[in-house]
Every structure is written in structure tokens, then in C-alpha cells.
């Protein structure tokens, strides 16, 4: 194709295909550029036969390209067909590596060589990223590959695998069955790998199944004839250079985030946060005029959204202003409100009335409202109760609410204000009860949507953080002092972030500040004979370091974060200010110190209980809210807990009794801990993972089976499983032999796995639907299985 193109679409995912097809349908000169040899690389890489879901169900599809739920193959075929039908001008193997110029005059560089001119650019390159290259001379050699589809394809070859992550390890192990395999690790151990992989690779290396070069980097790759092999790889090992003739090099070095590439095109991101999204107008235009961003890259993680945007963006480029496809959804949502306004007017009104949303870009706000709910509670109705585990965010559009933050602290909050930010930011239980006032209209925004906003709009983050500090200080330290008076103190407070294991302060340091734990948890340890022995565990919502401040001395213990932790610190000067404003604080703090000391005495700081506490923290229980622990001294191994779980949860057990570490007879089996700030929730495209008011983290039926949560949970408690058919009752089994008996699962071939069946994520839901509570615990005949919350840890440790 020669001459100027009106629209260049980069990336042939669902977004890109839809855009290009619509342009083709309208006869607009266009090109669709795809890096790989096939369209929709992300979907091509789903597992074979995966059932693709068309969430959100309520959203209508607006695209010349068809899409409905079905197998991956069916979806891909339909798109393939549609590309042909609309005579879309697609170019495969055309990776865009640079874009320069401006609206009307863009120059796209393909594969670091060929140039192409276009008036407008639509970026639909998703978020999967490109594999990181070796970055040495010769890394474009044909025998280097960055992905391995089928390890059994290769036999009797000499293969070098570069990388030390799970992908590299899994590839190396699989290839080692039939090939001579070397693995190259830049470091002296496999620190990043999952437990299972770590064990397997070290065993394989010790057993001589494959050979590992530790502390080694790749120097260069040569192409040519080396011992009848197509090339050689040169390695820099600690004992000098090594040359290896190879058939194949497999580099598994992770992915380069798309962000780097996109930034090089001139697109700006609001901050450094990896989850930040580029700022877009309501018409999906980035800060570079003429460059549009759609689909996952723009923060819309579902196929249908991407396709709709593809259609809309072409219309916008052509200067047509159409209503977005989600218009009717919003209309429906807003219908409950007592205003006679159009959708866009309502949105405007909201942004006007609620200051925290006023600076948010309208597109983002629209998306936020799509996820949010409008509530109109009766006067006096409880919006949420203290100690609920919910974590949505509320803004007051009309009327007012009463916040019962303490026994003598009730705050009235009116139009434009917000509440619920405490649980949103800390992942902790609600710290107050909120009741509706008269004529109250509230916007309830889910945690994930709010987090997305916080991470991409700095102004929102700042306001939330400031308010959080202010309200926390008032609630915890000075309930009788008006908020306004506390503002200078809150300004002086700092938010600190700690990695797991990081020291907050060290025994012997000067005590110059107090830390209020906002999220995560810490251990307090003292050293005995140069060994650090943890004495106490302090959960979020409490403070540490007050002893030093009250006595103005040195730190008497070392405080360490057990998991990712955030604290708010007040220095001694600020703290004295606070004491002056709120003299009764001293009294209440002394009380707390007394209680804390009593707890410490109970723990007695003996080495055994300290080790126990360390063990529990190493298992990541510092972020648990409810965890299954088994006392091995009571467990008879009957497996009743697992069977009970499977029987009450559609045949798949959500706990693995045999797995997990043991210390002093306390066993932490693999089962959900209902984390304070659940990792699994992070990247769930349909936002299917929810937390109930009781704290149970559970997965809803709109799960699309993408497996992100399985990967994100650090404790390996989520599986992907088919739904087995319902079992016949126990009597029909007993009398007629129907189906598997109690405690037995359906065989693999008995579980339907047709195209309409979908693997979905399953995890422990703490038996939310069972009136009796956790089945696993209730089924244990000996009392070995208990579900404990962190408050019980001290008891557990001190009674051991």
C-alpha cells in the first residue's frame, strides 16, 4: 500500500479488529498492523478450547465483527472470517517499533525498518507486553525463541534456556526429558521461582538431568556452523567465558511492559505506578493529538468493551459524535434518581457536586459510574456497619449521612463529601457505622474501580490520603477535637511503605516517632544473644512506637513488617501538639500500653513461642484475616475436612490438607486466608472476586476463567476447575449405586467438558452459604482443624 493512510490501527486484538473492520466497512483508507503471524495474539494464547465469555452481559455489542460467548476456536474463526468479509487491510508480522510525528502526519516504523505514514493512529496493543530480548549481539538469530508452545516437539537437541523465573524453569524441565539442556541464571539461586518449581529445578540440577550456569550472563550469540549446529552462545561465567554450540536458545526473561513502548510514542502516564493508565479524552484520544488508545491498554480489560471502543473511535475520528454503547446502561442506572435529567447532564452534575470527582476526566468518570451503584437509603438506614468487611467507596450526591465513628463522636457529612475511604485504603473492617439522613442519594463505587482511579489520578490519591490521615488521627487519638484543628497535625504526618520483612524501627534507635499501622501488620522483636525473637504481632489499626515517645527514650524493640505494610508516622513534636490539644489522650494511651505489656508478658518472649510466631509470619499469615490451621498432634489424617469441603462445594475441594508447612505440629495447609488486601482481586477482568461484610473473599459466577487470580494469589489456593454435575443423594447411592458416593469425586471423563462448559476459578468461600459455617472445621472428628483469625495467634503461640 502506498500513499497516506487515514487510520493506522496498531494491534489486531478485539479492539483493533473491530476498529479496522469498521473503517473498511466505511471505505476509509486504513491498515491493521499486527506484530505476530496471526490476529488476536492474546486470545490465540488462551488454552485450547477455552470458553470465551462475553461479559459484561448487559452491555450490547456494537461492531461489524461478531462476538458471542463460545469456544476460543469459534470466536477466532468468526473474526478471521469477518476480517476477510470486510476486506480489512491486515499486515501480519508487522511489529510497530516507533511512532513519530503529529496528527495528520504520523510516521510508523515497522520492525525497526520500514516506514509507513498515517493521519491517525489507533493503539490497541493490549497489555500482554512483548517478550524481553536478550539484549546482546546476535539476539535476532533464528534459533533464538522467546516462547515455547510444545516442549515435546524437540528431541535430542542441545538447548540453552536463559532465565530464572517459573516460565524458564518449567520449559527447562520439560525439555530436559528428551534434550541436553542448560539453564542460565544471572543470580546464584532461583529466588523468584514458586516453591514447587524451585524444588524441581534444584533436584533436576543435583540429579544431573540438566546443567545450570549460576551467576552467569549471556555475552553474545553467534550464527554459523558450530559442530553441525546452527550457532553458539557465549556465556560469561564466574570462572570465565564459556562457548556452547547449540541447536536452540530459549529466552524467558519476562515481558517488557507495553508502557515503555507507548511512552516512546509520546503518550504520557500520570505517574510511575505500574497500574497507572494513560489519560484519555471521552473520545479515547491521548495527549498526542490524533493518537487514540482503546482496549486493555486504555484500562478496559474485556473483549466486548474493546470491540465497542474500536467502533466508536473510528466514528470519532471521522468527526461523528455518537453516544457510547453503554448509554442505555447508564440511563437505566440513573432512572432511580429523583432528577429529570439526561445521562450526560447527570454525569456533569455529579462531577460538579462531588469535588473529589471534579478533576477526573469525563471518560474515566463515565467508566467509574458504569461500575458504581446509585443508592437511595431510607432515613436512618444503615449504609454499612462498624466491623463490616466491605470496602466500597461512597460519595454523597444529595442529602447527608451520620457517621458514628466512636462512642462520643458522631459526624454529620453532607453533599459532596465522601466516606468509606478507610476500608478502601487499608483493606480493614469498617471503623464506623454510617446511617443515612433524609433525601440521601449516594454513589457506591467498588474498590477496584476506585483503586484504578486512585492510581491514575494523583489529585484523588492526595485528597484520599489526607482525609484518611485526618480522620484516623481524630478517631484514634482526639475524638473531641474538631477536624479543622487537626489539619496541621495531619499535614505533618507521613505515610510510609514497607516491604515484607523490612524494619520499621530498630531496637536501640532513638525513639522519635509513633507509627499507626494503616495496612499490613508488624512483629515486635527483641534481641537475645544476638538473635531476634519476635514477641508480639500487631495488626493493622493499632500503633507501635508509643512507648518510646511517652518516655522519650530509645527503642526497646525492633519492629518489622510481616507483609507489605503501610504506616502513618507522627514525629514527637507533632505528637506533643496533639497531646496538648487532647489531654485525655495520654490517659487512654497509658491504658493501651498497659494492655500491650500484659500481652507481652503472656508471650514471655521465650524462644519457642517466638519461633512459632516467626513461622506463622513466614507463611504469610500477617495478612490473613481467617486461616485454617491444623494441629498435627490431633489430626488422624482421615481427610474428612477435604471431603467435607468438596462435598459442600460442587465436588472440588478448596483446601489441600497434605500441602503446606508444619512447625511444632502446627500445619498451615493450602487454603484461602481471606487476606486483608486480597492479591487475587487485583487483575480480575470482570471484577468477579468480592469480599462479603463478614470478611469472606469469594468468587462470583461471572468469572470468565482467565486464571489471573490463580496466578496472583501468592498462597496457591485458587484452582481452575469444571463444574461437576450434581451428585445423587446418599440413599440413591447406597441403594442403587447412583453416582459417586460421599467423599468420592466424579471421574475425569464423567465431568462434562464440552464447549459450553467453562473452567472457572474456585477457592474457599469460608462456606458463606452454609448456615453452620466452615464445613472443613465442623467435619473434623478430633478437633484438629480450626479457622483462626490473627487475634487468636497470640493465644495459639502462648498456649503451645
Amino acid at each position, binding site marked *: 500500500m502506498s500513499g497516506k493512510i487515514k487510520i493506522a490501527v496498531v494491534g489486531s486484538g478485539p479492539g483493533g479488529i473491530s476498529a479496522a473492520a469498521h473503517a473498511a466497512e466505511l471505505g476509509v483508507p486504513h491498515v491493521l498492523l499486527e506484530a505476530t503471524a496471526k490476529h488476536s495474539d492474546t486470545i490465540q494464547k488462551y488454552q485450547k478450547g477455552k470458553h470465551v465469555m462475553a461479559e459484561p452481559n448487559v452491555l450490547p455489542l456494537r461492531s461489524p465483527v461478531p462476538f458471542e460467548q463460545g469456544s476460543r476456536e469459534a470466536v477466532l474463526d468468526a473474526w478471521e472470517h469477518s476480517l476477510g468479509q470486510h476486506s480489512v487491510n491486515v499486515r501480519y508480522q508487522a511489529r510497530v517499533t516507533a511512532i513519530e510525528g503529529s496528527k495528520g502526519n504520523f510516521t510508523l516504523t515497522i520492525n525497526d525498518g520500514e516506514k509507513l505514514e498515517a493521519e491517525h493512529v489507533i493503539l490497541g496493543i493490549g497489555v500482554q507486553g512483548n517478550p524481553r530480548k536478550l539484549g546482546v549481539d546476535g539476539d535476532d538469530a533464528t534459533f533464538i525463541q522467546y516462547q515455547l508452545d510444545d516442549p515435546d516437539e524437540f528431541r535430542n537437541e542441545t538447548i540453552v534456556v536463559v532465565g530464572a523465573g517459573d516460565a524458564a524453569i518449567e520449559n527447562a524441565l520439560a525439555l530436559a526429558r528428551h534434550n541436553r539442556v542448560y539453564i542460565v541464571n544471572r543470580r546464584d539461586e532461583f529466588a523468584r521461582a514458586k516453591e514447587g518449581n524451585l524444588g524441581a529445578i534444584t533436584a533436576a540440577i543435583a540429579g544431573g538431568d540438566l546443567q545450570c550456569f549460576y551467576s552467569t550472563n549471556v555475552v553474545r550469540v553467534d550464527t554459523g556452523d558450530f559442530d553441525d549446529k546452527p550457532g553458539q552462545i557465549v556465556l560469561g561465567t564466574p570462572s570465565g567465558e564459556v562457548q556452547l554450540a547449540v541447536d536452540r536458545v530459549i529466552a524467558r526473561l519476562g515481558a517488557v511492559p507495553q508502557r515503555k513502548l507507548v511512552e516512546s510514542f509520546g503518550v504520557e502516564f500520570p505517574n510511575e505506578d505500574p497500574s497507572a493508565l494513560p489519560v484519555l479524552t471521552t473520545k479515547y484520544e491521548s495527549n498526542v493529538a490524533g493518537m487514540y488508545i482503546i482496549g486493555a491498554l486504555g484500562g478496559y480489560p474485556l473483549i466486548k468493551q474493546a470491540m465497542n471502543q474500536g467502533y466508536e473511535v473510528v466514528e470519532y475520528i471521522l468527526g461523528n459524535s455518537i453516544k457510547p454503547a453503554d448509554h442505555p446502561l447508564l440511563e437505566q442506572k440513573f432512572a432511580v434518581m429523583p432528577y429529570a435529567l439526561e445521562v450526560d447532564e447527570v454525569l456533569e452534575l455529579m462531577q460538579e457536586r462531588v469535588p473529589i470527582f471534579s478533576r477526573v476526566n469525563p471518560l474515566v468518570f463515565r467508566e467509574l459510574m458504569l461500575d458504581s451503584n446509585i443508592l437511595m437509603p431510607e432515613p436512618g438506614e444503615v449504609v454499612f456497619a462498624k466491623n463490616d468487611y466491605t470496602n466500597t467507596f461512597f460519595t454523597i450526591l444529595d442529602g447527608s449521612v451520620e457517621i458514628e465513628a466512636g462512642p462520643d463522636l458522631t459526624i454529620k457529612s453532607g453533599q459532596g463529601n465522601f466516606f468509606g475511604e478507610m476500608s478502601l485504603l487499608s483493606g480493614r473492617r469498617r471503623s464506623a457505622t454510617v446511617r443515612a439522613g433524609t433525601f440521601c442519594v449516594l454513589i457506591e463505587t467498588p474498590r477496584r474501580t476506585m483503586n484504578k482511579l486512585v492510581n491514575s489520578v494523583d489529585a484523588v490519591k492526595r485528597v484520599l490520603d489526607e482525609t484518611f490521615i485526618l480522620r484516623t488521627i481524630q478517631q484514634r487519638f482526639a475524638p473531641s477535637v474538631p477536624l479543622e484543628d487537626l489539619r496541621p497535625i495531619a499535614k505533618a504526618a507521613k505515610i510510609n511503605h514497607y516491604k515484607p520483612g523490612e524494619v520499621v524501627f530498630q531496637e536501640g534507635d532513638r525513639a522519635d516517632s509513633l507509627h499507626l499501622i494503616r495496612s499490613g501488620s508488624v512483629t515486635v522483636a527483641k534481641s537475645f544473644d544476638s538473635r531476634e525473637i519476635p514477641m508480639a504481632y500487631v495488626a493493622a489499626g493499632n500503633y507501635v512506637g508509643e512507648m518510646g515517645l511517652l518516655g522519650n527514650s530509645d527503642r526497646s524493640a525492633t519492629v518489622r513488617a510481616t507483609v507489605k505494610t503501610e504506616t502513618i508516622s507522627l514525629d514527637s513534636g507533632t505528637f506533643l501538639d496533639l497531646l496538648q490539644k487532647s489531654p485525655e489522650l495520654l490517659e487512654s494511651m497509658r491504658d493501651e500500653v498497659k494492655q500491650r505489656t500484659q500481652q507481652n508478658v503472656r508471650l514471655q518472649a521465650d524462644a519457642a513461642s517466638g519461633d512459632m510466631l516467626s513461622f506463622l509470619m513466614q507463611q504469610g499469615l500477617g495478612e490473613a484475616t481467617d486461616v485454617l490451621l491444623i494441629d498435627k498432634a490431633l489430626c*488422624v489424617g482421615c481427610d474428612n475436612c477435604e471431603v467435607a469441603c468438596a462435598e459442600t462445594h460442587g465436588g472440588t475441594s478448596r483446601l489441600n490438607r497434605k500441602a503446606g508447612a508444619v512447625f511444632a505440629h502446627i500445619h498451615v495447609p493450602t487454603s484461602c486466608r481471606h487476606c486483608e488486601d486480597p492479591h487475587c482481586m487485583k487483575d480480575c477482568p470482570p471484577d468477579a472476586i468480592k469480599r462479603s461484610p463478614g470478611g469472606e473473599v469469594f468468587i462470583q459466577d461471572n468469572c470468565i476463567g482467565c486464571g489471573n487470580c490463580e496466578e496472583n494469589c501468592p498462597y496457591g489456593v485458587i484452582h481452575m476447575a469444571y463444574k461437576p454435575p450434581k451428585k445423587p443423594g446418599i440413599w440413591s447411592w447406597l441403594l442403587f449405586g447412583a453416582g459417586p458416593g460421599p467423599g468420592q469425586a466424579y471421574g475425569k471423563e464423567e465431568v462434562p467438558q464440552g464447549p459450553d462448559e467453562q473452567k472457572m476459578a474456585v477457592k474457599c468461600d469460608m462456606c458463606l452459604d452454609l448456615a453452620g459455617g466452615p464445613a472443613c472445621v465442623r467435619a*473434623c472428628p478430633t478437633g484438629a482443624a480450626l479457622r483462626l483469625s490473627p487475634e487468636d495467634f497470640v493465644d495459639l503461640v502462648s*498456649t503451645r
Partner: protein
Amino acid sequence: MYQSFISYRGGRWFWISLVLCIGAIGVYAWHDLPQPPGGGTWLGYTLGTIGALLILWLTYLGRRKRNYASKLGTVQGWTSAHVYLGSSLIVIATLHAGFQFGWNVHTLAYVLMLLVIFSGFFGVWAYLRYPEMLSDNTGGKTRGDLYREVAEIDKQIMRQVAQLGSDMETAVASALDRTVVGGGVIAQLTARDDSQVMMPGQGLVANVRQKPILDLVVEQLSQTSHREQASYLREASNLLGARGRLLDRIRRDVQIQGLLRIWLYFHVPLAFACVAALIVHVFAVFVYW
């Protein structure tokens, strides 16, 4: 924090059962009957009915245990009650019968009941004693983990002996191949070692605790003057020793897990037999009034 089913809720069911027994004994001792004591008196009927109901309820544990969504107490509570109320039957049933035993179906029911109860006693003893031993024995590892360790050591051993000539290699390989863990019920419960080895010149011989093959390697080691060979042999003997210890632990694991379960194979069938005999007993009593 953790409580066994024996001390469940401060031994609530122990006290309840105790009161039941003392009550029964009291009434038995003080009551004044026109007839000699036995099942036919009003007290006999009462105690008999209580006993029969208890037995049916005790048998129902097998169902409750599998009623996973049940809201009716916890299985731990049920087990605790089962154990104590089950034991109280010794008193209840004996008083019911008024110590009138003979060679009849009535006494058969009674004897079966006692067998169930005493097998239950063994069960309680096993449940209290073995779990800790089980956990100490494997140090928190699963049996699968231990088997994987053995497989790993096997590979390493074969790599050492590959350097030692074919006689040695076949002998060691046969020892690894013919290592037996478990076997029949008796072998499992006694942790018997049925392993064998193909010794050069001797054919197939028993290889209990891997000692013969280890002896062979050590023997060779003492005879060799070849430095390299000595180092292979030494390494192989170390590995064989470690392997033997691992196998011992696996056998112990099999043994304890077996002991934890074996009694139920008596307890449950006997319980059903007892129920059957009981039905016959009650039937007989009414028919031959």
C-alpha cells in the same frame, strides 16, 4: 486453643455419661421389684430402651459424619458424645440384663456390643497417641515427599555405582528394584520389610533394612585399593544408608496410618452385627413373651 474430642467443652459428655451411669446404678440398687432383676422388669425395659436407642444413635454417627452441610453440632462434638455415651452402655446394658447371661441371642447382642465398645477404646487410644508420632516421624513431610526423596537418592546411587563394574551395578540395581514397602495388612501393621536383592553368586536373598546390600558395598570398600573406586563406594554406602533410614520412616508412616485405621474395620462391621443381633433380641423377647 486446640482441644481434643476427649476434652471437648470441658469433657461435657463425660459428665453427662457419668450422671447417666450413676443414676442407673442408683435406681438399680434402690428399686424394689417383685421379680428378680432383669430385662423383664419395668427398670429392665427402661434401661433396655435407653440402651437400644443409644446404640442406634451411635451407629448413626457414620451417617452424620458424612452429612457435611449439617448444622447439627460439629463432628467433633458428636465424636466426643459418641465415645462417652458409648462407654456408658457397659453399665446401662449390664444393668438391663440384670447380670443374667447365658448362651442365647440376648447375650450374643451383649457380647457384640462389648466388642464394639472395646474396639472403640482402642480407637480412642490410637487417636490420642498416634497423630503426634506420625507428625514427628515424617517431620511434616507427606509420604509422597518421602518417596520423591527416595527416587532422588536412587538416581544418585545409580550414578555412583555405574562406575563400579557390572556386578556391583546389577546387585545394587536389583536392591533398588526389589525394595518393598508395605504389602499385606500384616506387613503394613508390623512395618515388615520384604525387600530382596540379587546377590552376586547367591541369587535372590532377603534384603531386610537394606543391610545385605550395604554390607556388600562396605565389604568392597574395605577391599579396594583404588582411590577413585573407594570414593564411589563410600558415597554409595552413605546414600544407601540414608535411603534405608528414609525407607524406615516410610514404613513407620504406613504402620501408624494403618493402626489409626485398622480398628474401624472391626468397629463398624461389629456395630452393624450388634444392631442386627439387637433386633433379633427384641423380636425374640416379644415373640416368646
